[in-house]
């Protein structure tokens, strides 16, 4: 089989030799049992993108023909000396389906909310980028090769995902300030800036590997954004500075994403969901009980009235909550008993992030 992506393969091979004394030929030998006639071996992840270090693992997708062996969404773990190699074997038609789902998601107004991987796994986001930006070390190109339309889809999906995450985090930061929870406020404000920057860096066409590499990007290919991040890298030592820190983060995130991120603007599209609690009264006692979670919250009479007005299984928009209801629901969110959901996503056309990127390139 012809090996393509010669330059990037050579860079990758050099990295593996330097970190582990291992050649790509040995990696191919170890995973050979997973391969079939006509498939391709694609390397993605931090080592393929010029990030990584000697502790990084090697992420490989074996892309099989449509009639190839059965696939796995979980990686098979291997060790080649000190190098850990995670391998996913996937059929090309499954990869095509994933890109089709990504295109549908991008065309939809519905929020992503984890549809392409949650905050921890990000499985599909990473897989899309492995295919779109990965290095083919053996076999024919996958889905027409790196770059092109697939790279656009992978890029736009990540931009939108992280723009939506930034919107979420910046709303939580502002609600936390109002609720008198300064640490939650500043933690989420910094997170919002990091998410907005990830969207911006991704819009520049840099492949995504994991959240943890953002700051390395800011020290390298995206060093023009480093100063902006530095203002938020360390949280204020005093809780009294939280409100100012959050206000600065709101202004910065607005500028990065081209969105109005004030609570008043976001509250119409954001809503609470809380279906795991029931209000009970026993004499003067008013309690919200979550039997399945083994939790109970005591309410004042006024709070109980405010809660009851929301009806069973409340799903109010943030904009429709009175201050007492908002306070209760944020408290439940902070305790893991309510969810913050969005009525609509952020289609790329609504973001002016591309304009920012072009300015940056110019």
């Amino acid at each position, binding site marked *: 089989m012809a090996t393509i992506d010669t330059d990037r393969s050579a860079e990758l091979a050099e990295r593996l030799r330097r970190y582990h004394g291992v050649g790509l030929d040995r990696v191919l030998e170890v995973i050979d049992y997973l391969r079939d006639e006509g498939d391709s071996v694609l390397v993605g992840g931090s080592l393929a993108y010029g990030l990584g270090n000697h502790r990084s693992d090697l992420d490989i997708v074996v892309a099989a023909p449509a009639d190839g062996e059965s696939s796995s969404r*979980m990686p098979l773990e291997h060790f080649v000396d000190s190098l850990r190699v995670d391998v996913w074997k996937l059929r090309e038609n499954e990869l095509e389906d994933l890109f089709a789902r990504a295109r549908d998601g991008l065309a939809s107004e519905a929020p992503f909310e984890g549809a392409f991987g949650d905050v921890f796994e990000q499985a599909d986001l990473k897989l899309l980028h492995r295919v779109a930006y990965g290095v083919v070390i053996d076999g024919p190109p996958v889905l027409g090769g790196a770059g092109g339309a697939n790279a656009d889809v992978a890029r736009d999906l990540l931009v939108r995902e992280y723009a939506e995450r930034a919107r979420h985090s910046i709303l939580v930061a502002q609600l936390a300030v109002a609720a008198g929870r300064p640490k939650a406020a500043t933690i989420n404000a910094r997170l919002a800036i990091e998410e907005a920057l990830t969207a911006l860096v991704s819009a520049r066409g840099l492949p995504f590997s994991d959240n943890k590499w953002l*700051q*390395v990007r800011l020290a390298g290919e995206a060093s023009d954004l480093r100063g902006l991040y530095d203002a938020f890298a*360390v949280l204020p030592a005093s809780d009294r500075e939280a409100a100012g820190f959050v206000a600065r983060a709101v202004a910065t995130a607005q500028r990065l994403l081209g969105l109005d991120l004030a609570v008043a603007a976001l509250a119409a599209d954001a809503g609470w969901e809380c279906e795991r609690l029931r209000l009970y009264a026993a004499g003067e006692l008013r309690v919200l009980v979550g039997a399945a979670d083994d939790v109970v919250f005591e309410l004042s009479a006024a709070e109980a009235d405010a809660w009851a007005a929301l009806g069973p299984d409340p799903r109010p928009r943030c904009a429709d909550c009175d201050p007492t209801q908002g306070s209760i629901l944020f408290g439940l*969110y*902070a305790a893991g008993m309510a969810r913050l959901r969005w009525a609509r996503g952020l289609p790329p056309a609504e973001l002016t992030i591309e304009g920012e990127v072009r300015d940056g390139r110019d």
Partner: protein
Amino acid sequence: MDAIDLGARRYIWCRGQAAWLMGPPAAQWLEDLRGALDAGQEGLARHVSRQLAEDCAVMLALALSHGRPVPGPSMRGAWALERIAGHPAAAECWELIRGLDEVPVDDELHERCARLQNQAREVVGHVPDALTPEGYYPALGLAREWIELVSAVGESGFLPSEWTRGSDA
């Protein structure tokens, strides 16, 4: 013998969450930190020390204050810090979560993080790293014991979702 002054269900649930949801990631962060420091990747070191401190804070909060449920990712760091206030490790957790003005790209940061992880492990217990050859089978064996324990108190599900996908639907 210590009598646990808490419902068995909540006690086991919290210990299981602390050991399995937070323990393995914390161990992985320490590995990542070693790699970042060796490679001079200050930004990565800054990020992973923060994440490790948050995971340790959550582990301690679960094991010491038995908070349930664990809030979503956006709130769990602050949630944990509130619950471990006064614990000897609380100040270090906050300092690392808050972020470091200067990240020393040397062993000092690794020592701080390893010390914090050990403090959490002393409370929560140790889960072998399933991502290493030497930890793979011990982790599976320990998981089997934990599944039996949580089942005995009528609880289910504390293993990372990727371990149970398809079987816990």
